[in-house]
């Protein structure tokens, strides 16, 4: 009897952790998604560079998060602000299977880091980027992550960010925003009038978005961290549905608005719309209804188009739309939880308190990411330097920074 109960518990844990691990693999697969989106939406002469950055931030992120990042995020809480650092993941973190959680959280950390590369693409020194990546996965992301998922002060307040609209995506987006603002726009982007600098392959970009969409079925449902028992599996199933509906609504919305504003339905913006819908639903995918998910997707699609326009008006050059997709949509999606959560949301009679906490969390984490990003990028700028020389930018980072070109057709 005893024995059977243990066995059953073991099996439940096995199922839960197996799901977490499979989801981790799917989230890891978002890395090529990001790489393809960022490569496709930028110019061919910088493709090797952007690919390299994507490989590097995942590798450095995986190493650093294991070395120290994980413990800062999930270690014993110190004053609600930070986890107890612990080198090389040597302690125990009280999960059924610590390593499963480590790998799952590692791929999340790498997601936050990789978002930045898109925003600062086509002009950032490779060395500078590695440094930024290093500090983001080792310190900046884990600290704010601790506030929400590691038992820190925001979790105490009841801030709800299920899979990381704010913790992961907005943090990446805000860091990208300071980064691109400090580095300045690409050459020729805002000479007098705004100039379009179209990406070199929408095929590759579209492939990336599809890959991300797929990976998100690990990102969101995997964050349930369990799959056994009717409650868990129903939750997971429902998260699949809300995630997919929000992405669909984001795509369709961005398409329609681009159609109205620019006279033609734009693939580029529809792709971003899909991503905006995915980012926005991430915070509340577990607590909103399918209908609520559609609303979140619609709002995200709208946010996307006007966010992109706004940044352009401010002459902030974000080549792949990372700031809007991850920063703005992540924030909007997190706040919408306060309205649309079926339990506690304002629209469902839950009053304004949840909305308040959600907003507070979004603002607090934005403040953290923006100020830390400011320090980080200023520091890099005044030490190793942030931006490649004019000639390198004009003729392509690939040749000068890597001595390689992505496309070779003359041999």
């Amino acid at each position, binding site marked *: 009897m005893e024995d059977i109960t243990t066995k059953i518990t073991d099996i439940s844990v096995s199922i839960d952790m197996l799901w977490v691990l499979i989801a981790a693999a799917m989230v890891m697969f978002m890395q090529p998604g990001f790489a393809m989106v960022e490569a496709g939406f930028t110019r061919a002469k910088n493709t090797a560079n952007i690919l390299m950055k994507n490989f590097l931030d995942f590798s450095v992120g995986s190493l650093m998060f294991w070395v120290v990042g994980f413990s800062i995020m999930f270690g014993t809480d110190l004053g609600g602000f930070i986890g107890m650092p612990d080198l090389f993941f040597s302690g125990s973190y009280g999960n059924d299977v610590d390593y499963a959680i480590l790998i799952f959280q590692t791929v999340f950390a790498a997601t936050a880091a990789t978002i930045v590369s898109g925003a600062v693409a086509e002009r950032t020194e490779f060395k500078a980027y590695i440094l930024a990546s290093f500090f983001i996965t080792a310190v900046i992301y884990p600290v704010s992550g601790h506030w929400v998922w590691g038992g820190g002060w925001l979790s105490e307040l009841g801030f709800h960010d299920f899979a990381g609209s704010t913790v992961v995506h907005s943090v990446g987006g805000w860091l990208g925003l300071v980064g691109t603002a400090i580095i300045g726009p690409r050459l020729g982007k805002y000479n007098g009038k*705004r*100039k*379009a*600098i*179209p*990406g070199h392959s929408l095929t590759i970009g579209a492939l990336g978005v599809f890959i991300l969409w797929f990976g998100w079925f690990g990102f969101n449902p995997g964050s349930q961290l369990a799959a056994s028992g009717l409650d868990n599996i129903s939750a997971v199933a429902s998260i699949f549905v809300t995630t997919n509906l929000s992405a669909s609504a984001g795509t369709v919305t961005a398409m329609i608005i*681009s159609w109205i*504003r*620019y*006279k*033609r339905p*734009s693939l*580029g*913006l529809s792709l*971003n719309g899909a991503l905006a819908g995915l980012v926005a639903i991430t915070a509340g995918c577990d607590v909103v209804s399918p209908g609520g998910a559609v609303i979140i997707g619609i709002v995200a699609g709208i946010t996307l*188009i006007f966010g*992109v*326009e706004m940044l*352009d008006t401010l002459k902030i050059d974000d080549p792949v*739309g990372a700031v809007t997709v991850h920063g703005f949509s992540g924030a909007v999606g997190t706040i919408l939880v306060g309205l649309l959560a079926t339990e506690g949301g304002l629209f469902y009679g839950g009053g304004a308190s949840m909305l308040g906490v959600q907003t507070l969390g979004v603002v607090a984490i934005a403040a953290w990411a923006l100020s830390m990003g400011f320090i980080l990028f200023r520091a890099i700028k005044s030490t190793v330097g942030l931006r490649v020389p004019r000639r390198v930018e004009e003729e392509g980072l690939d040749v000068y920074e890597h001595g390689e070109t992505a496309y070779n057709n003359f041999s």
Partner: protein
Amino acid sequence: MKKIEAIIRKTKFDDVKEALGNVGIDFFSYWEVRGVGRSREERAFRGIVYDTSSIERIKLSIVVRDKNLKNTINAIMESARTGAIGDGKIFVVDIEESYRIRTGETGNESLYIKGEEE
């Protein structure tokens, strides 16, 4: 010897190639170019509208002996025409000298294969 440079529609390439073959023009080079012309369409990338008068076309470069000039031009004119705007252009340039790398032959000789033609 003259060089004929023709800019034609991509969709007409097969027809032109066949027409050239029919008048005995078996050797030429071609590549993709973009033609700027009157037919403007607006494009937009991420919300920024940019003009796109550029359409993909194919450029042929054919060096012929003087006696083949007329034929060749006529062949292209007929096979590349649709009558709608954008059919393209043909330009003629003088060639001072020509060499066949394989044999070192020069002049007219370098432009046809001996034994196959008078």
